[in-house]
């Protein structure tokens, strides 16, 4: 009898573990959703803190230019080389400018700019807000009649959403230039023809869809940084954990939403 009692819980252990992690995941999704909703409401309702927004635009946007630019030029160049080699297998080396332009504007520009931002910005936001949580600065802010969602979260969400499309536009231009550089310098393409082919081929929607993706990615990057920082628990270790979670979850959400947005755009 006693043995049967002991066996029963042991038997249900895996079931219970699955249940627990499922509930945990659902709670997390709900938590992020509520956080995002509160963040968006804070973006659109006063009081606003324009100086904070300005600071974030500079911190997130301007200071990300070097990393985004470097990533774009190398990726564009490598992409150019690969497509030239691949195209050569069926004598289609000449489509290289078009494929590079398409790949950069529709896919690699927004995704790579967003990933660099996930590493640089999402981590920084999570660490800063997490440290503020750990040292009671967020509590202090509330007792000083200032809503941390409006003062801290809203400016970061808005700044990242506005700035990532601009960074992506820069990445598009520099990425295509990377392909051009390789083509003209190494592969003996004619510069004028390369540029003309690119310009004739590329459509507004190629660039536009990439920019829409970028806005979504920007929101994700800031949201993950703010969410994990705001909910950081347990001192320095908690801040470290929050930073890791922010980067990993932004990256995964960027890839996942990239797939769904691409599906949406190609069917539209």
């Amino acid at each position: 009898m006693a043995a049967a009692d002991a066996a029963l819980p042991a038997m249900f252990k895996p079931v219970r573990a699955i249940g627990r992690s499922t509930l945990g995941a659902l709670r997390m999704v709900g938590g992020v959703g509520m956080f995002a909703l509160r963040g968006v409401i804070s973006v659109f309702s006063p009081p606003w803190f324009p100086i904070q927004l300005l600071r974030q635009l500079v911190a997130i946007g301007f200071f990300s230019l070097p990393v985004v630019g470097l990533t774009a030029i190398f990726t564009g160049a490598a992409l150019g080389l690969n497509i030239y080699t691949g195209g050569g297998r069926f004598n289609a080396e000449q489509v290289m400018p078009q494929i590079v332009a398409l790949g950069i504007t529709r896919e690699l520009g927004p995704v790579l700019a967003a990933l660099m931002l996930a590493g640089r910005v999402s981590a920084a936001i999570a660490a800063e807000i997490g440290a503020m949580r750990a040292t009671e600065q967020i509590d202090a802010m509330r007792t000083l009649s200032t809503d941390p969602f409006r003062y801290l979260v809203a400016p970061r969400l808005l700044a990242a959403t506005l700035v990532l499309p601009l960074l992506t536009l820069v990445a598009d231009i520099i990425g295509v230039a990377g392909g051009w550089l390789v083509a003209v310098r190494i592969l003996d393409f004619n510069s004028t023809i390369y540029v003309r082919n690119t310009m004739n081929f590329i459509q507004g929607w190629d660039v536009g869809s990439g920019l829409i993706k970028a806005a979504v990615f920007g929101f994700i990057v800031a949201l993950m940084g703010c969410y994990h920082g705001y909910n950081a628990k347990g001192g320095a270790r908690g801040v470290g954990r929050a930073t890791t979670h922010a980067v990993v979850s932004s990256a995964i959400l960027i890839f996942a939403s990239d797939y769904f947005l691409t599906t949406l755009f190609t069917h539209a």
Partner: protein
Amino acid sequence: MTDIPKLEWKGVRKRFDGPVLDGLDLSVAAGRSLVIIGGSGQGKSVTIKIAMGLVRPDAGQVLVDGEDLIGVSGASRRKLFERIGVLFQGAALFDSLSVWENVAFRLINADGVPRKEAKARAVEALGRVHLGAHVADSYPSELSGGMQKRVGLARAVVASPEIIFFDEPTTGLDPITSAAINELIVDQVKGLGCTAVSITHDLASARTIGDEIAMLHAGKIVWRGAPAELDRTDNPYVRQFVDGRADGPMASTV
């Protein structure tokens, strides 16, 4: 009407993993300074965080001037925060802002005071805690722990609150700096004529800043009296705490 307490906890309950507050009843009259003492982990922090509106109790009421503040939100909550000032344990200064911007944070961001006037008022508040105008433009990380506490005190009093909370005001400070902070607290509280609620396990601090002392144990108030009575009472909890004995009704949980 004068017998309505300025601040009152009524049957407040809060559990986290276990019960923390178990039907807490406590009140402070206007203009009085109440110090809550008790061992670590007895719910002191939660008690004042509930009164500050930072933690929501599971049951019970917190009344300010007879009005329940649990569950109020939006504008009325902001109104409530306008009437309180808090000195946090680690001072909780914003490290991305200069000292004067910290002190003037409420004035600039919540009250819409122009920056120039806000700075003047911040410098004046810093003067009241004996910090010179040259400190105003430095950053919190450049200051010592005692100076950070003073800045925190200036930030708590700058908007002339009705109730001030002090969370472990002397923790982590040397005895001389502690004494100076205690004196400043008494000066500010008497000067503003406001109600003060402090939590501490530093008895010297409790005796200096308190008009009344209440002892919290296992989520309830087990004793309350004037500072002088601390040494006379035969309450076993107070005796153990004041005499600093490991054995007694409060078993050490370490």
